[in-house]
């Protein structure tokens, strides 16, 4: 089916208005002609008689390559012909468990189910062939989409075997391959989505449309938390093409029109009187005052060893502070919704289809089962699309105007009405022995809780994210990592690597401080603290000091740490473990008119088994550049209750003329794969600031660097 006929089907279903979700169920690929036997051994794949293998991807593609990496895992165990793999994007469903795309979790959480799905299907296809040929199963092998019986020189394609296989029992514990037998996993493999992203065909949320669809922009109170007092829509309604002006909830007014431009012009002409609410005097200074004043409040412990108070020696202290940040994905927030009274259909660029389903259902008064959520491509995520605000808006507007509608945000809306990386203050202290080695290390994080603000404070008041993002992996006899969570009026969200970037900046900068105070080389200082092979259990993760040491040694070797640098060039190092992965980075800079110019970044990671080194390299580049944008210039500030940044001029991100040379390395490993989208972000800022200190003797204790 062509895209247009598919969409017309949606409208036809809508007109029929049966109210049944199935009445406008849209198979994403116009799947199967009636009567054709399709082999669907589990929720993750089907094999058609022509041999086409469709892998269902129940995570969102936001650039990180899940639409290639996850099928690779399944295809490896299936022994499929990679050239016959197609993917189907799963919408919100009950079949796949938690479909959230975040926490660098897609590969690590689907590694087992995807392998088992492929292996189970392979065993069924072998059983079907053995049955057909009357030969023992054990004599059959598989290769690139065929079952082969070498003794009788017979082969049958998966497509030919699919019908027979479909009638066989599904093995409960299929045998998985040994890593040494992999032919696809670990090999650089082109992404399946690349061609469509070079010719304009890739369909993002903003590209989805149906006939009769309206476009809507919402006017929101410029002051955080403000509400609508009243509005005058007489001028807005005069704009040709504007069809509706409706209040949405108590804090926004939507202007809908037949075209994007009319909706934009209509919103401009709309006059709203706002009740600024309690935050009209809120400022960045006031936000940080709250954090600083809370620094002595009762804390919760995240990690502890020995007794830091009993440690004796030379004591050092420092305070670090980090600003709020915005995600600024290239595709601003948008969502399509069609509310039909007893059901609602949504097309959303979202990282959380199930949350969208539930929050839309609640907002428009439906049961979750009556809301169908389809996931489009995401023009970047970085955590912004873990929120469902824009999907709820779309559903509410569709309900209010009784029409299919696409709610869109401008870049200005994205910057000023987002959820932000929380601000943080960090109190660090260490006690050094006579040789300069640390006998105690303390890190007190003072930062509002994201999950807590969203009503899910976590067990024992510990923000659940901190369990993946705040471990201290060096072997120091007395350690105390603790956490204070003051309130914050600014809406908070999860930004790529979340608390890990904050924790790593403070602790890895401070380690540099104490190494220098001890007169030691920063790399050797860290390695010394990792000399013993130990496991450190931090919440649910068992960390190995040897693997952190491994990435530090690898980055040291590849960057030629210790070699003489050209005059004017300086380097810094940092490492961190989060989301199960170990990452270390060396940053080389020159100083130009007092500002750092980043010349070279060397990255080393240990993320267990690498699925696709091609995508791994993309993720490492991406993380370095993301981290650099934040470290150099990233900050969201608030004055008079209003976010001050509004576009890429006031919130600049790195451009091509500023990117350094980036060299990427990974540890060859067959350990279970761990996260990669986020772990290379945290070491960047401290490595950079450690290089700046090497160059200028100036210790940077707050970011961004440009504000210092």
């Amino acid at each position, binding site marked *: 089916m062509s895209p247009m006929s598919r969409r017309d089907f949606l409208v036809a279903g809508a007109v029929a208005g049966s109210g049944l979700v199935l009445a406008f169920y849209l198979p994403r690929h116009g799947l199967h002609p009636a009567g054709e036997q399709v082999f669907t051994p589990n929720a993750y794949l089907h094999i058609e008689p022509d041999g086409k293998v469709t892998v269902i991807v129940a995570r969102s593609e936001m650039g990180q390559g899940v639409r290639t990496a996850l099928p690779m895992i399944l295809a490896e165990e299936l022994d499929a012909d990679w050239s016959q793999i197609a993917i189907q994007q799963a919408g919100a469903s009950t079949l796949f468990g938690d479909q959230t795309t975040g926490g660098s979790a897609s590969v690590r959480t689907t590694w087992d189910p995807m392998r088992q799905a492929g292996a189970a299907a392979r065993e069924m296809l072998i059983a079907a062939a053995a049955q057909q040929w009357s030969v023992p199963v054990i004599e059959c092998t598989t290769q690139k989409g065929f079952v082969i019986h070498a003794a009788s020189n017979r082969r049958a394609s998966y497509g030919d075997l699919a019908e027979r296989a479909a009638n066989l029992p599904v093995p409960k514990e299929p045998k998985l391959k040994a890593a040494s037998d992999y032919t696809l996993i670990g090999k650089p493999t082109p992404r399946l989505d690349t061609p469509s992203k070079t010719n304009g065909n890739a369909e993002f949320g*903003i590209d989805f449309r149906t006939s009769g669809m309206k476009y809507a922009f919402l006017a929101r109170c410029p002051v955080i938390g403000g509400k609508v007092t009243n509005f005058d829509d007489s001028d807005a309604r005069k704009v040709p093409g504007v069809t509706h002006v409706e209040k949405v909830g108590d804090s926004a007014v939507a202007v809908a029109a037949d075209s994007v431009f009319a909706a934009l012009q209509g919103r401009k002409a709309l006059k709203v009187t706002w009740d600024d609410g309690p935050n009209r005097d809120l400022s960045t200074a006031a936000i940080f005052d709250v954090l600083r004043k809370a620094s002595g409040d009762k804390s919760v412990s995240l990690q502890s060893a020995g007794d830091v108070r009993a440690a004796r020696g030379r004591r050092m202290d420092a305070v670090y502070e980090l600003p709020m940040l915005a995600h600024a994905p290239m595709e601003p927030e948008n969502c399509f919704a069609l509310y039909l009274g007893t059901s609602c259909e949504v097309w959303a660029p979202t990282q959380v289809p199930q949350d969208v389903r539930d929050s839309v259902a609640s907002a428009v008064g439906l049961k979750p089962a009556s809301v169908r959520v389809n996931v489009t491509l995401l023009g970047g995520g970085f955590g912004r699309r873990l929120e469902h605000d824009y999907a709820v808006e779309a559903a509410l507007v569709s309900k209010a105007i009784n029409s299919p509608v696409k709610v869109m945000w401008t870049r200005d809306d994205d910057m000023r009405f987002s959820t932000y990386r929380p601000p943080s203050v960090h109190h660090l202290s260490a006690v050094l022995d006579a040789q300069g080695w640390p006998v105690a290390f303390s890190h007190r994080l003072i930062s509002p809780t994201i999950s807590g603000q969203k009503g899910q404070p976590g067990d024992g008041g510990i923000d659940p994210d901190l369990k993946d993002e705040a471990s201290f992996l060096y072997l120091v006899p007395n350690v105390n990592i603790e956490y204070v969570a003051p309130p914050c009026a600014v809406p908070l969200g999860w930004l790529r690597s979340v608390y890990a970037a904050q924790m790593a900046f403070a602790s890895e900068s401070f380690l540099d401080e104490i190494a220098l105070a001890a007169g030691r080389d920063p790399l050797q200082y860290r390695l010394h603290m990792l000399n013993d092979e130990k496991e450190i259990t931090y919440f649910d993760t068992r960390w190995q000091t040897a693997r952190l040491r491994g990435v530090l040694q690898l980055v040291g070797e590849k960057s030629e740490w210790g070699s003489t640098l050209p005059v004017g060039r300086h380097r810094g190092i940092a490492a961190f473990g989060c989301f199960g992965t170990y990452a270390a980075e060396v940053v080389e800079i020159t100083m130009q008119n007092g500002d750092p110019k980043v010349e070279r970044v060397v990255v080393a990671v240990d993320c267990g088994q690498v699925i696709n080194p091609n995508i791994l390299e993309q993720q490492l580049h991406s993380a370095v550049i993301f981290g650099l944008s934040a470290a150099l210039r990233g900050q969201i500030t608030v004055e008079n209750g209003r976010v001050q940044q509004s576009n890429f001029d006031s919130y600049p991100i790195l451009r091509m003329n500023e990117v350094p040379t980036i060299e990427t390395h990974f540890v060859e490993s067959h350990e279970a794969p761990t996260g990669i989208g986020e772990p290379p972000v945290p070491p960047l800022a401290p490595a950079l600031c450690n290089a700046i200190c090497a160059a200028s003797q100036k210790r940077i204790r707050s970011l961004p660097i440009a504000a210092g």
Partner: protein
Amino acid sequence: MSEFTLRVNGIERKINVAPDTPLLWVLRDTLELTGTKYGCGAGLCGSCTVHLDGEAVRSCVTPISTATGKAITTIEGLSPSAAHPLQLAWIAEDVPQCGYCQSGQIMQAAALLARTPRPSEQEVIDAMTGNLCRCGTYHRIRRAIARAVEAGGGRP
């Protein structure tokens, strides 16, 4: 509302829109050419880059009234078979991550190579610095441009 005649990807199209409508929205909403993307609305990011008579322009800040009488080329019309040397190089280097900015990146690079078939590294950087990529694909973009140049794609 006014009537305009546009020549888009070699085809004449008659449209009826407000004269101050940015070319971007005409392309996306009216003509359904959604390969051109909205990123900032202020000419700061380059996601909306198209060609006007071969020159790269930001369609989000180009009023439709100034685009009439000129040959408008979008990513959909860059090559009839999506096989412009830059598109092939983009695939060979596996450039895109989220992909949202890539139409604009390719159109910007195509305008550069049409005028400067063998650009220096600095000329590439100068030409491409107006195009933002939040995923950080800059290195592969440079590799892909170099590959297209080597393949002779820079020749007019």
